[in-house]
């Protein structure tokens, strides 16, 4: 039961927990860099790197959160024409297409991670293995795959039971 509770917490808040330290990293490194440059006339080559790489993690984790809320932009003209049941099918179709692309994206981005590991490339500023940062893309898309499977399962059972389909939360409510 304990495990189930933990999994439930991750499902509800997984993206949020990951975002907090990443945002903190972006804002504080850039802020400190500005202070350092203006007060001590000194700037580092690694601060910008931290912010940039944390941003890529934020971006793809955010994309996963947006899938959970069905917030990604789509042209939904056609949806207005359909009944709720048909809508569910349209959503499932879209999710499957996205799933295919996400799988391809994981495959293609893993290739760059493996190449980087193979050649041992490091970043310019931090001199840390580039693979740590390149991994943001396959990680983000894996999270998206997970959210997509959840969404397909939910829509399918809604379709079967004839319940109104989840149409997503608004980005700005």
């Amino acid at each position, binding site marked *: 039961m304990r495990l189930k509770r933990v999994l439930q917490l991750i499902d509800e808040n997984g993206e949020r927990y990951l975002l907090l330290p990443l*945002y903190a990293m972006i804002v504080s490194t850039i802020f400190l860099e500005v202070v350092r440059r203006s007060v001590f006339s000194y700037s580092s080559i690694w601060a910008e790197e931290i912010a940039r790489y944390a*941003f890529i993690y934020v971006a793809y984790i955010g*994309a996963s959160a947006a899938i959970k809320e069905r917030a990604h932009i789509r042209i939904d003209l056609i949806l207005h024409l359909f009944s709720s049941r048909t809508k569910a099918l349209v959503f499932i179709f879209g999710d499957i297409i996205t799933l295919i692309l996400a799988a391809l994206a994981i495959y293609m981005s893993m290739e760059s991670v493996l190449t980087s590991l193979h050649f041992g490339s490091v970043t310019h500023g931090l001199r840390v293995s580039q693979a740590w940062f390149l991994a943001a893309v396959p990680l983000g898309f894996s999270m998206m795959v997970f959210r997509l499977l959840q969404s397909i399962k939910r829509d399918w059972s809604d379709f079967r039971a004839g319940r109104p389909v989840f149409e997503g939360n608004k980005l700005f409510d």
Partner: protein
Amino acid sequence: MYQMYMQQQELSLGWEFFVPLIGMVILILLAVRIWTVIGLGSLVMLYTTGVLPPTLLGEALFDGVDHFALIAVPLFILTGDVLVRTGLSIKLLEVAEATMGWQKAGLGTSTVLGCGFFACISGSDAADAAAISRITIDRLVEKGYPKGYACAMVAAGACTGILIPPSIAYIIIGLVLGISASTLFKAAAIPGVMILASVMITNTIINRFRKYEVSDIGFNFNHWAKTVYSARWALLIPFIILGGIYSGIFTPTESAAVAVMTTIIIGFFQGTLSLKDFPEMLETSAKVNGVIVPIIAMSLPLAQTLASLQVPQYFVQSITEATANPYLIILLMLTILMVAGCIMETTPNIVILAPLLLPLALEIGMNEIHFCIFMITALGIGFITPPLGLNLFVVSGVTGTSVLAISRHAVYFVLTMLVIVLILAFVPALSLWLI
């Protein structure tokens, strides 16, 4: 440079271009996520045409968005959100009201000015529309405005969210075309204020005919000074952002980080912000960013493929063959942008259309910065154009008024904004004076 390409070479595009293109159109109509369609489209086109290696897509997912300038996007959304949560946005509206409340259409004009103030902090029009409409619509209705009209006015004023710097749209178009965001922010100042003024003037004129409100408050300097003083912390934020960028102390990204930090510190000092608020605020900003970034990442390989296939040149050639009149071509571009603005969100429009239309603009002697201003302002009208204007939907979502009822009143604002866009298109000095 473009003339060199143009030396009457026979350009031809075959099935390897049109089949993926038609596939993309079908998927878009079937309500598939835009970034998915663009991504699959680029991948298939890379395979069928063979002009570039398909691994391009995998690289673009990282390299394409690995830009310091892009970090400003989530941060400028976050500043807006923190501002709303700390209640500082209400202070900004109070200043707006003390400044413009003496006018005949006082409350309306002040509300629009409030949209403009908020636009100096947030980089997103939808955030602007949500924040301002939540506070002001009820008061406007109380004062005598019909609800649909009040909603339309706020939606129109909120267009300045991306037209007045800082602006996510200018950051993205700068990234796509390789122009610094600071330069674009400088260029956008006059056009942004012109749009804001046009919304105010439209409201004043309509008010004169329909007599929605007659303000009887005179201008009281003591009251104004008191309001400004009590809003000093809220006013500090736009001062940091715009002052920092325009004086060259900060890059836009740095100014965003400093503004976020300052707003959070002010919020903690005033006790209006607590640690509990953070997860939700961060998730909102990350979600908006997570919607934008995949579109950029997936569009870059598509844009490169199109460039390798010489599609932009093909496009320019077929249009200049039909007409060489620059006025007609500007009108044509305006039509394309407005239609695109009505049916799709800004980000995909910018990444797909900017590389396609820029050669055409250069061909008729437009400066590239002038083109950026023209393009973003024209797309901005799309936010309040029915049937799919984003701002209309946001305001409708907040207030519960139907989109149809708002659109009916939005027409006036669309028309005056259109006039401003035409003026901007034909008078380059307005966009180029400040840079």
